Every structure is written in C-alpha cells, then in structure tokens.
C-alpha cells in the first residue's frame, strides 16, 4: 500500500464502495420494477400467467350440454325425434344455442326458422356433398319456394306426408 503513514482513507470514500452503491441501487430498482410488471401468477405452471387457466374455465357457455337437458321439459319432441331420421341430431343443431332458454325458460323464447336456408344447409344438392351420405334435393324445384316445414315435420321428416319416403 502506498498510503501515507497515519492517514487512513475512510471506507466510504473508496471507489469500490461508490460503484457498489450504484450497483445495489440498479438491482433494487430492477427488482421493484420486475415485481410490479410481472403478474403474480406468472410461472405458476409454466411460462405464462397461471390465473389465465381459471379465466378460460369460468367463461360463460352458450350451448346447453345436450338433448337430455331438453328432454326434461320437451320429452315428447325429443322422443319423437329419437325414433326418426333425425335421431343423430342435437336439438341445438337446428334450434341454435339454448343455454339461456334452459336457465330462464320463461324469459327467452327462441324461434327456429323452418325454411330452406336452415334445412338446405344439410339437404341442398351441392358439388362436394355426396348423395351416399345425405339425402339432398334441389331446394328451388323441390319446394317451389315454400318453407320445408309446410310438408315436413323436422322431428319426424316423413310423418306429415304419409310416413313414406317419396
């Protein structure tokens, strides 16, 4: 050491200490900023915000769980449909989302349009749609513009027209 005898430098005057103070300040500020900007549950299960899983799970549904729910009130219709050609269908395939109706049956009265747009979604003759998979018609010439439900009961498609396939 090349210090002059009898004159000891105060430790707080040393260059290393001053650099250290700056370093500690930087680290502390970094720690605080990080603490504030990274969400609490980040990294809980992986490199993402763990709380988000619960947010997705608790999102509202629109479609009811299935036909068994519908059958609690509309047993006749569900049973009729179950015995006919449309037995594979979920009620909501045609009737649309019904969970609001299930929760408050008197408040929401859903309507279903029994027209060629609805039925034609499956039964319209179209390139790509094989007749082996589904019975198709040329909707224009088949109904002449009338709604399908005039002749067909969607729950039992051939019941109204004598029970037999044309």
């Amino acid at each position, binding site marked *: *050491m*090349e*210090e*002059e005898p009898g004159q000891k*430098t105060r430790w707080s*005057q*040393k*260059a*290393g200490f001053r650099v*250290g103070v700056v*370093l*500690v300040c930087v*680290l*502390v500020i*970094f*720690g605080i900023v*990080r*603490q504030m900007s990274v*969400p*609490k*549950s*980040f990294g*809980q*299960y*992986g*490199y*993402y*915000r*763990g*709380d*988000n*899983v*619960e947010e*997705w*799970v*608790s*999102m*509202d*549904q*629109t*479609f009811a*769980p*299935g036909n068994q729910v519908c059958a609690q009130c509309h047993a006749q219709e569900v049973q009729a449909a179950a015995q006919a050609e*449309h037995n*594979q*269908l*979920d009620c*909501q*395939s045609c009737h*649309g*989302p019904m969970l609001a109706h299930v929760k408050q049956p008197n408040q929401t009265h859903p309507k279903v349009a029994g027209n060629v747009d609805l039925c034609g*979604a*499956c039964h319209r003759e*179209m*390139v*790509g*749609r*094989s007749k082996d*998979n*589904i019975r198709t018609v040329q909707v224009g010439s088949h109904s002449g513009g009338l709604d399908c439900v005039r002749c067909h009961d969607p729950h039992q498609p051939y019941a109204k027209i004598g029970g037999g396939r044309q």
Partner: protein
Amino acid sequence: MTKERLSRRDFLMSAAKVVAAGVVAPAGGLAAAQAVFADGQSTSQETAVQQMWAGKEWGFVVDTQKCIGCARCVKACKLENKVPLDEEVFRTWVERYLVFNDDSGDEEVRTDSPNGGLDFKQLDVAPDKQFFVPKLCNQCHNPPCVQVCPVGATYRTGDGVVLVDRKRCIGCRYCIQSCPYGARFLHPVLKVADKCTWCYHRISHGMQPACVEVCPVGARKFGNQLDPNSQVAVLKKKARIRVLKPDMGTKPNVYYIDLDEVVE
C-alpha cells in the same frame, strides 16, 4: 487530502464483496416481498387446476367420410365463442376439395371455403373426387405459436389445449404467422390473437365442444386420449388415421379418419 492509490488486489477484493452484497441483498428482499404478497388462496387454486388436469390429454377425431359440409359447426363455434358472425375469421372452418383427373393423368385440385364453409355454392362441374374437410386448431404437442410468443401470452395447458391469455397478448401477430395450419387470427373486436380452444370453458365442465355438440352426422369426436374407453382413444387405435402436415414436427392432436393425400 492525500491521494489514495489502490493496489489491484485490494480493488478486486472490495469489488467482489460489493457485488456479492449487491446480489444477495435485493434477492433476499425480493423473496421476502414475494412471501408477503403471496396469499393462501393461490395454492388451493393451484391444486384445483392440477387436479383438473390430472390423467387428461384431450384429443379430437374428424371423420372426413361423414362430413356433409353443412357448416353447423362453424356457426355454432362463432356463437359459442362470441366471434363476430359477419367477419371473415374462424376458429373452425370447413374446406371443400374437388379433385379432377384428366385423360393425361394430370390431377387438378380445387379447394374453397367461402365464409368458412357457410356459403358453399353449387358449381357446374363434375369432379372425380369430392369431399369436405373440417379444420380447427390441432392443439399441437409441440406448438410453434407458443414458442414464438414474445410475452408469454400463449401456452399449452396440462390437459393439452393451447390457450391465449387475452390480458397479456399485445396483438403482435407472430403466432398467427407461425401456425402452419392457419388456425389463428386477430380477434376483430378484442384485437388479440384468437384461436380454437376446444371450448375449454365447456370441456372443463364435462360438456362437449360446441362444434361436436351440433354436428348432425357425428363427424367430430372429442374425448380424453388417456381414457382407453373414450371414443377418441378407440378410434385412434382402430381407425385409419392421419394428422395434417406430420412433417412439420408439430405433433397435432386432431386425428383425421380417411384423410386424402391432397389435403394440406
């Protein structure tokens, strides 16, 4: 005041001490702060989520032989997940494939999916081969979209569904670019990345995804791949299945029955 001169050894020693103190002190402080902020509730929620995931690996089977292209799935998906009906964005969509073979042996493939399959038109053509292919997120084992997200806003859950954290997503669209299946889009209203979640809010409560629920021909099957009795596990074992773009190495979890080789 006399000029101080440090030897190299002294400088290095004191610098080392300072650095050590600088690292240990804030780290200790951080740990203490985290202990204070953490509450008991998060641990119970953690176990609930882990219990929900235990023994589950969701899987999806699409039967291309059965699909009739009615696009009930497309409409139901939009209604269930509140994706605007009048926008050209889809969490699931249906493609029509028409294959023509001419006399010279050349093959022409025409594909369309107008409005996600909701507006297929009758065409004046007679293809040699015709079929529909429903598409949706493959919930890959090895998802490129998760890898590229710069903010950790998208992830794969313990039961095998890739989700987007809407609060964290900054809408940079990297994930949309990286998906080899085009399954992602920017939500027109929320302005964050959106994609099929296999209706995570339904399947977590024992319901089927909306598209599976409404499919009139049973072309879509959903279930737990780890449950040997589930329809998906049985079909995966017995049916002739293929995944989309296996060469991408993404390991998709949507399995297609009798998928034609022209489908990409």
